[in-house]
């Protein structure tokens, strides 16, 4: 019992363990389907070495994801703010518990150990920031309005509905870019469809495993891997999408095309942008996926 024995070194004696590589699939409606198109694309490391075959999502997958998101809006936006806050906090907890795995995955794709750690920690921080905002943003963004007549009048922010997001594509943002764009959208009760980092979609799918085990209701976050240039136009013209976040659209011609498409049902459009290195989150980013509702009621006896 009390004897402390060093574990025998396996590497020396035994042949190299044959690993069990993960199949990276999509994340739609709380499930992990392959692309209905049957397509995939190679994910490679910095040296061009094969890492995995990621699903190459199709237009149909995008439509399925929007349908799943729409289905989730009612329950998620109807949950209490306290509840949403705890779910977001749970994401941070589970992410933190799998910190090493995410670091290793980022390193395998070419990140330095230091930058990988920094990115994972930034993602965790972003989730915690938003977890704490769920029951506060409405108090800051809402108002009681002193109208010049005997009416009780107040304004409150509400989620806009389904938000389509092109995640940041910059190096060093494959994981924290998801936090930076998903968290401000879902904290208020929106459901999202995210097009992941194109060349490193692995973090996104591993992150989907975090979501799937964090009490995030199915469909609140849906993640597509593949080509933003192929998927985003479908999402921008989809008539059941309420808003688009073009954060990671680097091609300005594509960005204009997407904004023009979004006008068809007057989607709220957040234009492409570079997030600052120190980004954690802002109230503005939460506000841009909310609608303000103003309510009047007479005062009388």
């Amino acid at each position, binding site marked *: 019992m009390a004897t402390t024995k060093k574990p025998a070194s396996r590497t020396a004696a035994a042949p190299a363990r044959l690993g069990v590589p993960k199949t990276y699939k999509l994340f739609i409606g709380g499930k992990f389907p392959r692309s209905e198109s049957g397509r995939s694309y190679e994910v490679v490391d910095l040296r061009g070495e094969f890492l995995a075959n990621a699903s190459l999502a199709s237009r149909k997958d995008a439509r399925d994801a929007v349908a799943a998101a729409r289905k989730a809006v009612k329950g998620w936006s109807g949950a209490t703010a306290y509840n949403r806050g705890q779910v977001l906090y749970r994401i941070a907890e589970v992410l933190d518990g799998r910190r090493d795995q995410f670091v290793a995955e980022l390193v395998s794709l070419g990140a330095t150990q230091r930058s990988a750690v920094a990115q994972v920690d930034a993602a965790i921080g972003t989730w915690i920031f938003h977890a704490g905002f769920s029951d506060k943003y409405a108090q800051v963004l809402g108002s009681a309005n002193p*109208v010049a007549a005997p009416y009780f009048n107040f304004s409150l922010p509400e989620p806009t509905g389904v938000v389509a997001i092109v995640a940041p594509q910059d190096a060093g943002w494959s994981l924290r870019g998801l936090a930076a764009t998903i968290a401000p959208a879902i904290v208020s009760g929106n459901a999202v469809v995210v097009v992941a980092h194109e060349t490193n979609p692995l973090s996104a799918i591993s992150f989907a495993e975090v979501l799937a085990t964090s009490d995030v209701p199915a469909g609140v976050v849906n993640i597509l891997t593949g080509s933003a240039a192929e998927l985003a136009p479908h999402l921008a013209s989809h008539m059941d999408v309420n808003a688009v976040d073009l954060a990671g659209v680097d091609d300005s011609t594509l960005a204009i095309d997407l904004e*023009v498409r979004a006008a068809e049902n007057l989607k709220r459009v957040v234009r492409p942008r570079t997030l600052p290195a120190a980004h954690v989150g802002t*109230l503005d980013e939460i506000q841009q996926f909310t609608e303000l509702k*103003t*309510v*009047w009621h007479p005062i009388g006896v």
Partner: protein
Amino acid sequence: MATKPSKTATAAPATTRNAPPKTRRGSAGPNQWEYAPAPESTKIVHLRERYEHYIGGEWTKPSAKGYFDTVSPSSLEVLAKVAQGSAKDVDRAVAAARAAFDGDWSRRSGAERGRFLFRIARILQERAREFAVLETMDGGKAIKESRDIDVPLAAAHFFYYAGWADKLEYAFPGRRARPLGVAAQVIPWNFPLLMLAWKVAPALAAGNTVVLKPAETTPLTALLFCEVLEQAGLPAGVVNIVTGDGTTGAALVEHPGVDKVAFTGSTAVGKRIARAVAGTDKKVTLELGGKAANIVFDDAPIDAAVEGIVNGIFFNQGHVCCAGSRLFVQESAFDAVIAKLKRRMDTLRVGDPLDKNTDVGAINSNAQLQRITELVAAGSAEGAEIWQPSGELPARGYYFKPTIFTGVSQSHRIAQEEIFGPVLSVLTFRTPDEAIEKANNTPYGLSAGVWTDKGSRILSMVDRLRAGVVWANTFNRFDPTSPFGGYKESGYGREGGLHGLAPYLNFDGRR
């Protein structure tokens, strides 16, 4: 009750619905109550024969396209000739606004900007009657509305935003707010002066300069407003007015020199603007169409609800983007509500908008009258049942009788499309869930109404209605402190209140 209702039981309500309301007396309609005509005098209004653009504090001749007539929709008289703005005129106006922004205006403190706005509010109050009469002459709305609602509210908007001009650090704590620059503002014909106030007041309070294009059919109060600006001593170029048609508006919002676009009008034009600004840095607010649901439960105070229904759809001849144009009545209250509604509609006085007794004035233009007529014809053709009060319409001018359709189904054009006239589509529901389902079944989301005596039901309905303004046990209330704007295809951004300031500002630092 038996689970399977007998034939007579189902047939009974249908017969009552078709029967004329029992309470209708004699030859109803305006003739029921004789009033001597009480027209407001137009002597107070001194119109010029011809109006040019107001650019850089000067009346400026149009560069090319000449002038068009603005006509009274009630008397059909030509009131004045108004300049048709070209791209070159717009260019000049934007340059004047830019010069003012870079010059005098940006050196003014918030307190000074506020003082100008306070002055404007006061002058509007002083000249209220003149503005009310002119608004009614040019647009056709009943004088009691322009006198009691449009003009006082316009003055109140300036007064409200005047106070914000030197308090932006309280509105946005911890951030330095900066004006955007030149705001391009295009407004509609339904509330010409009021929409001008909604646009100009927050823009100036935030420190921007403005180029505003009033609607083609109702430019006169905006042009009279230029006199107010001069009396208030506002620096030249801070507010510029360019008149014209849709091409003038398009040239303005597409002008590369504008930093902000604020538009109130149709959803179709709003979409065009959203496309036009794609890829630019322009900030945009769009206040567009609506097809509001006005939901009446059987426990509602019916008399109050009927007043709310009437105010909801016949206010300003129904030329209201947030009009309660879809009435949802709980089935158990249908007969009572419709009978009282018809009786009330019989007392509405339709006629000369300048008459102080007039409830429903003239339709704004012949084009709008044609659109209303076409949609009403579609309503009948698709099988809905039309009802209009008796009584005659004036022989001259554009008028349309207050109209209700019963037996309307969700797919009818009159239940889907914005009519923008005094036409109400009546639908029914049984449960709150059904009411919500039907009410939200529209691409629009500007406003909604709920009538019930039960507080918890109000809050639950308010929570589930997808609309930017919800009136509970009231309808069509407006106030400068109260944010206004839509969900979905009714546009984005808010006007009014604290929330109406941010769309005119940039911020140093993130919040």
